[in-house]
């Protein structure tokens, strides 16, 4: 029994943190937040060069062939640094979908380029019901039509895995769609956190190649969402911890009524409660990392628990980080809002908290049936 990362994994974490503290400053995050670039290409290159993109891609497909534990460690650091890069879309979703459902040819074609950081991939699943709502995505004769929104990194991705109904099927199928093809129209959409860009994709007869078996999208996505949930939970834990540190540091430094505000119980206890949330989330994510790495039957429940607790912790810490900062906490110039934005984005981007809560209970109950 050993409920902690190994020394090698800790070393990986230290080196990732070192690089990101230098390369991925909040100034860089703001550049993406305030600009039109899809993501920060310099940081992405650095990450790719360190092998982070291919950490969990098998060596035969150009990756490092390390395990998921290493990927979890990396995810935590990217979350801590609020890295403005297409990691979730490309590594957590696109690559994992390919690994699980791709043919050998598909894997050989795309995974090496993902590992090199040369290919940006994403998943196009959601179909908004807002003003832009359209007919549901459908594939007929190998051509895709429909609208997807929001699509993470949809503006800069080279390729998307699209969930669509083939012909008159009752269940959807996954399709690979080259986003530079004819019949693909992309529109940037603004989200709660513009440091991670999203787009609306309109498909008007774009060529689509099946990924995995026909009608199997729901099943494949279910598995991959569990994996991605663990990886995103590590990002959330990383972000939560950083937000707590910033709040703590400010509480030690800011003086009111002649003493540091961190000496007032209202602030002390607020920070203590944030630490409790974080500790609970961290413990659940560690367990989920083990379940992911060991492909345990516990993964579905563990992933949901990690997701639910990490979402709670990041929202809690990022919100109260603003509160501890007071007025300057909600200025554009201070970094607090960057964490607030990211926490609220991640709370929604793999499905809502209440959906994951329901999944968690359904899975616990299956596991412990009476």
């Amino acid at each position, binding site marked *: 029994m050993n409920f902690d990362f190994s020394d090698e994994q800790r070393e990986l974490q230290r080196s990732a943190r070192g690089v990101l503290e230098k390369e991925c400053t909040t100034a860089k995050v703001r550049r993406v937040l305030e600009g039109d670039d899809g993501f920060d290409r310099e940081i992405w290159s650095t990450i790719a060069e360190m092998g982070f993109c291919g950490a969990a891609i098998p060596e035969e497909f150009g990756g490092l062939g390390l395990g998921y534990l290493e990927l979890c460690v990396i995810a935590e650091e990217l979350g801590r640094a609020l890295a403005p890069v297409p990691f979730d879309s490309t590594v957590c979703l696109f690559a994992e979908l390919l690994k699980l459902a791709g043919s050998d040819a598909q894997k050989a074609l795309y995974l090496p380029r993902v590992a090199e950081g040369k290919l940006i991939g994403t998943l196009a699943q959601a179909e908004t*019901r807002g*003003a832009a709502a359209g007919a549901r995505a459908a594939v007929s004769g190998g051509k895709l039509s429909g609208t997807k929104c929001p699509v993470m990194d949809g503006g800069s991705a080279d390729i998307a895995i699209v969930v669509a109904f083939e012909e008159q099927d009752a269940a959807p199928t996954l399709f690979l769609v080259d986003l530079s093809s004819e019949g693909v129209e992309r529109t940037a959409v*603004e989200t709660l956190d513009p440091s991670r860009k999203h787009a609306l994709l309109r498909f008007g007869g774009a060529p689509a190649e099946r990924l995995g078996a026909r009608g199997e999208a729901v099943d494949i996505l279910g598995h991959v969402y569990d994996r991605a949930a663990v990886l995103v939970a590590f990002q959330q834990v990383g972000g939560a911890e950083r937000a707590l540190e910033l709040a703590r540091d400010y509480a030690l430094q800011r003086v009111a009524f002649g003493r540091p505000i961190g000496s007032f119980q209202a602030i002390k206890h607020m920070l203590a409660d944030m630490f409790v949330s974080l500790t609970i989330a961290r413990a659940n994510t560690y367990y989920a990392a083990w379940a992911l790495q060991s492909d345990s039957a516990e993964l579905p429940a563990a992933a949901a628990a990690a997701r639910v607790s990490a979402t709670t912790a990041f929202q809690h810490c990022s919100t109260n980080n603003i*509160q501890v900062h007071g007025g300057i906490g909600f200025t554009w*110039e201070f970094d607090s809002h960057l964490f607030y934005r990211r926490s609220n984005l991640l709370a929604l981007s793999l499905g809502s908290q209440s959906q994951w809560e329901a999944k968690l209970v359904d899975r616990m109950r299956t596991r412990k049936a009476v």
Partner: protein
Amino acid sequence: MDFEDSPEEAAFRKEARDWIKANAPHDLRPWLERSPYTAVELPPGMDEVAAQKDWQRRKYDAGWACIAWPEAFGGRDASPAERLIWEQEEGLFRKLSTLFLINLGISGPTILTCGTDAQKEALLAPCVSGRHVWCQLFSEPASGSDLAGLRTKAERTGDGWTVNGQKIWTSFAHEADWGLLLARTDPKLAKHAGLTMFVLKMDSPGIEVRPIKTIHGHSEFNEVFFTDVFIPDDQRLGPVNGGWRVALTTLMNERLLAGATVDTGFDELLDFCQRFETENGRAIDDPRVKSQLAQWAVRASGLRYAALRAISLESKGEVPGPEHSIGKLVAGSMLQDIAKFALDLQAEAGLLVDADVALYAGRFQVMLMHSPATRILGGTDEILRNIIAERVLGLPGDIRVDKDIPFDEIASARA
């Protein structure tokens, strides 16, 4: 106990309603309905300042600008109940007086209570009529919750004062003609004892106004820098070094004039849940949603009726309690929780903020980004709990390590 109008009240309500019907800019109604929170969004090309000044002027001419004030200064000595009725009848158009929140809630009442006859004569009419826009120059970067810790200095020079320092969170500073300034006039005295209140012209030489960009991008807040700004002594409000007492009057007024309406976000959430279809039917039919709605519903109605009760107590001559503190304390975190709850219902679509793709016109997304400020501005949640604990429940104040010490010694300890 009667939640309905007496005959006199009904008559007053009719008068108000008739006047609103005949005089309000009804074409702006849809715009005001859509305006999120503190912001006023008007049709493209319309001058927001001019539109607000126009509405204020019209109200002033008809005696509706500040009905609780004495008749001598443009009011009609209205009772608390009449104030409430007017507020209810003015309704949405109250938003068009946003620019004058400081005029009517802060500067005006302070001058009325603490000003000399000459000051009242000169300043009050343009304050109420909206000819002058006022701003409040109290908070500083190093003194937010601890207002009395402010450092902006006013030093005696000839027949007036020279001001140096910096203020922050100043709403409407760009539009303002006048400012109400609290400054330190004697740093050798204990922190509350060395402050003085002034009124000053915002076009005085040496004033620089810089807008603050906030988390939601646009904002009415500013930083104001003072470099050797001169204020004649007849613009001093109240005695030298008596500024803290004047400030308390101001803050008290702020509480008195707070309306019965506090925005908790509940009405919007209820409306949204009644319309929104989830995978399992209308959101409002989900037991989880129902339970949450009920918990917020009683807070929203409780705040509404508590404010009404405060008005009744005021009518009987009792001094209103901390109802305003409670309203803001409850509403601040409710706004935040409600916004998160609504976005959760929207699932992935919840992260969209563009009004043309977002659900429910992106209102809850705006609420989410505004709500952190609500829990801080005008007293943080923590300060409000202290106020309730100390002023209502009679619990001891926090231990004060900076009490009875000359201000400049605290300040040095601080650096």
